[in-house]
């Protein structure tokens, strides 16, 4: 027999003024199973809580109902009090007769009637509550950081400095990301490599960071605190343990004309290469697509077509037979920092719904380049050693036209968002250009100049006022080669006149998009992403670096277009969140999770399809002899967040959400019967 104690709170005058608390306590006291029913001025006060503890001890209560304010206010308080008296905390519930009753009604009789109803509903629920144990999950205090750009580097360093072990996975041969390609950075014009390379080295040398370059995340299992990650180590064809990065192999390589990815195809590299001299780790990779040895192999040649690098390597580090290897790492948290790539300008688009700007001549007119290519042209480590020379004939361009919002903010092209960084880097480009070509003319076509940020607007003003960039508000309709010049046809919407410019070079500030393949990674991690592929944060304002999957965090431009300061701030925030998680030995979770009755489950897996968290797993049911009887659903309590969508979807009600079971709700509805 249930022994329920009911405690009706006056909340000073807050409830008592409108609700006759004594009558509530009296009426509820008549209910079967209620052995104790009292009212008191302030239930949340110490004496109030003492009343509860005393009653539990003296009357042997099996459930407690506190009829007071909203459970959002004090459920924790009263559950703790009940727990303190030896009652399972989840046998204590609240009836909300303040926010939902006394504060919103004036008629004392009606309000009191309603308060009685509300209390009775919860009494009937509590009669069917069962003791629940808080779920405790051990935490693996290692973190996985995916992506070795500036966001990933920052997150890894903050985590490692905070005492956590870190596995940093980068799919390129070197960490550094796009930031390592930049010449100088806004709004201070400090050299990108100068501020980045020390951090890259720090990552390499940090005792708590395991750097895994040229690797990719292949599979992720598990849940917060307990992820098991399978990482693919792509074959470098170079033994990392033997190589000392002397570079002799690259000098010996016979293939020297591979377009360099790092130089955005404006420069060349060898088939065995490190992406750039400051690469970390400084260990080369053989590009098997271009390597003469592997091409010979692919053609079926018996003799080795080449082996110059192997001959040149004094340490015998070249290993043509190397294959992809798989490594498993156990981690407690994951930071996704896969960054961005530039929108494709031409006809070939990576995703349905995106359209290019064929009319801008990118890819057909050599002197039409994108922003990252301009960075390489302006970079001291770039293909022109920092001299600004145009790709077609190597002449110094005297007139450059910059086009902003190529792709961005253009729903007709499939991208309606603002890429955020282009206004700033275009202003930077005009300045870099003028600093290198003093008589150069820079013209910028823009829609708006969005320079919100510390020192940002001042920076764009400087481009105009000190470095003489001409800003034309309007769009460009066509860019084509006309003899020696690149013709730009546009429209000045402030003057209302067409503009025609004979430029030497055109730079397109193309939109930022998430990295190719991010959808697959997001699915692997079961985090959600928007229609562009950007990872969704758990809450746009209050939980900006968490995802909807507990234990998976996000930093940098894979969440939305971000500049360097934003990415770094996000990375540090994500690291702080992970360190906060790691500060617990065990994770405590509310036990309001779903449980499957394997005997009743028919295995239709509608629950799996509706679960927002991927918490539903498949479980085999076997008889004593080990014969497979059926495969049923099983909820992983570490992953389940307790929404209960599975239960409402389950046709046979074979899954129950603890704390909100069908019996409890049935009893609540029943208690409202006339």
């Amino acid at each position, binding site marked *: 027999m249930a022994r329920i104690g009911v405690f009706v709170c006056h909340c000073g005058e807050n409830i008592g003024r409108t609700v006759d608390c004594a009558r509530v306590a009296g009426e509820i006291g008549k209910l079967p199973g209620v052995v104790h029913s009292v009212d008191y001025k302030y239930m949340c006060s110490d004496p109030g809580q003492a009343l509860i503890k005393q009653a539990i001890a003296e009357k042997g209560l099996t459930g407690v109902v506190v009829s007071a304010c909203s459970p959002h206010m004090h459920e924790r308080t009263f559950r703790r009090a009940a727990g303190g008296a030896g009652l399972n905390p989840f046998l204590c519930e609240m009836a909300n007769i303040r926010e939902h009753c006394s504060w919103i009604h004036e008629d004392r009789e009606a309000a009191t009637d309603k308060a009685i109803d509300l209390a009775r509903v919860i009494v009937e629920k509590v009669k069917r509550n069962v003791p629940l144990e808080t779920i405790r999950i051990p935490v693996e205090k290692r973190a996985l950081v995916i992506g070795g750009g500036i966001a990933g580097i920052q997150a890894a360093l903050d985590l490692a400095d905070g005492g956590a072990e870190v596995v940093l996975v980068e799919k390129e041969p070197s960490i550094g990301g796009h930031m390592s390609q930049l010449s100088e950075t806004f709004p201070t014009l400090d050299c990108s490599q100068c501020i980045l390379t020390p951090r890259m080295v720090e990552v390499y040398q940090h005792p708590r960071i395991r750097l895994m370059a040229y690797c990719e995340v292949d599979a992720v299992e598990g849940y917060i605190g307990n992820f098991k990650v399978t990482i693919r180590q792509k074959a470098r064809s170079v033994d990392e343990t033997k190589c000392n990065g002397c570079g002799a192999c690259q000098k010996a390589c016979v293939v020297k004309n591979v377009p360099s990815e790092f130089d955005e195809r404006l420069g060349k590299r060898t088939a065995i290469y490190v992406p750039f001299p400051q690469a970390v780790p400084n260990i080369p990779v053989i590009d098997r697509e271009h390597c003469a040895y592997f091409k010979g192999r692919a053609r079926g040649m018996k003799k080795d077509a080449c082996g110059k690098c192997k001959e040149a390597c004094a340490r015998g580090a070249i290993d043509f037979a190397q294959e992809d290897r798989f490594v498993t790492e156990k981690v407690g948290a994951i930071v996704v920092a896969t960054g961005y790539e530039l929108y494709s300008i031409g*006809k070939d688009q990576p995703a349905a719904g995106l*359209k*290019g*700007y*064929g*009319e801008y001549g990118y890819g*057909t007119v050599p002197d039409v380049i994108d922003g990252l290519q301009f960075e390489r042209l302006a970079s001291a480590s770039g293909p022109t050693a920092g001299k600004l020379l145009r790709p077609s004939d190597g002449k110094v361009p005297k007139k450059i036209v910059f086009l902003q919002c190529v792709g961005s903010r253009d729903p*007709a092209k499939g991208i309606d968002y603002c890429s955020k960084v282009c206004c700033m880097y275009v202003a930077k480009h005009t300045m870099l250009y003028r600093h290198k070509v003093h008589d150069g003319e820079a013209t910028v076509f823009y829609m708006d100049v969005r320079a919100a940020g510390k020192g940002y607007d001042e920076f764009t003003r400087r481009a105009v006022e000190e470095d003489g960039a001409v800003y034309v508000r309007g769009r460009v*309709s*066509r860019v*084509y080669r*006309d003899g020696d010049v690149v*013709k730009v046809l546009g429209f000045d919407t402030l003057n209302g006149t067409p503009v025609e410019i004979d430029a030497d070079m055109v730079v397109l500030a193309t939109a930022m998009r998430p990295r190719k393949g991010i959808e697959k990674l997001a699915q692997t991690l079961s985090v959600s992403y928007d229609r562009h592929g950007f990872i969704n944060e758990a809450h746009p304002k209050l939980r900006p670096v968490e995802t909807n999957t507990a234990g998976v965090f996000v930093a940098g431009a894979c969440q939305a277009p971000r500049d360097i300061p934003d990415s770094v701030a996000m990375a540090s925030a994500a690291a702080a969140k992970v360190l906060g998680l790691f500060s617990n030995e065990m994770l405590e979770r509310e036990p309001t999770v779903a449980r499957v009755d394997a005997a009743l489950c028919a295995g239709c897996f509608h629950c799996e399809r509706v679960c927002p968290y991927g918490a539903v797993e498949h479980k085999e049911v076997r008889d004593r002899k080990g014969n497979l009887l059926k495969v049923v659903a099983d909820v992983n309590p570490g992953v389940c967040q307790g929404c209960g969508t599975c239960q409402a979807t389950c046709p046979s009600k074979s899954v129950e959400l603890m704390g909100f079971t069908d019996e409890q709700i049935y009893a609540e509805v029943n208690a409202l019967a006339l």
Partner: protein
Amino acid sequence: MRVGYYPGCSLHGTARELDESLRAVAPPLGLELVEVNDWSCCGATSAHATSHLLSVALPARNLALAEEQGHDQLLAPCAACYNRLASARHAVACDAALAETIEDVLGRPFPSTVAPRNLVEVLRARLDLLRERAVRPLTGLKVACYYGCLLVRPSEVCSFDDPEDPVSMEEVVTATGATPVAWRRRLDCCGGAFSVARTGSVVRLSRAILDDARSAGADAIAVACPMCHSNLDFRQKALVRRGEAELPVLYLSELVGLALGLDAETLGLGRHFVDTKALVERALASKPGPAAKPGPRPSAPAAAAKPASPAAAGTEAV
């Protein structure tokens, strides 16, 4: 394939060669053109300048007729007609109140199920047949494909190709064996209906187009609009400067017809102001292409062999 055919006023007047050439190329391309009974003017350039309702109601009427006569698509070879039909359909689709008004005005239901198609779109959809039956590929002929302003814009109405960088005409020209040239003014305005009212503007605009096509090395300009054709062909005497050679301006269907082995007369090539004879002779001189094999159209080789006679192909086609 059976397609509703809406010639519009031009194709019965100044653009007869477009009508003739289109009717000639239709059978070999597997098209059955069924002229919509009782069609009326689409309103063209004048209606939308005077009454929005009229500019929607006139095309809507023709679409409704096509619907009643069992068509699901309606070919309007004139770019202006196509644009009006498509615009009207779009306007009605976006505005429920207007849709009701239009049904009142028409006195008949307008379910708007008929899709307007333009010349380029229809030809592009038959590329496989064209390649197969192009017995006289126009190898070596350099063609500037001129879209004008009405064919691909506005993009939400004419969604069949990229509004700023279309490729469909080039695809058709490539299928005829000719080579499309890269040039810039393929989407510029020729001056359109201001031909008479502001001839000076038209001359300036059309001359720029002509100059650009010529400097790109084109032997001919391909068009898909009677208005463009009129400005570039009929006015060309006024456009060219002393000593400059004239540039033949052909309807896309005429080029397709030549490639299919049809003769010049059938295609209406004699109706042009700029002489097309040299161009035609060049085309006829080209060797029968690899596609000239015994196929479903036995008259084709005969046409290629005896180009001067009124070819069986032409007769059969009309």
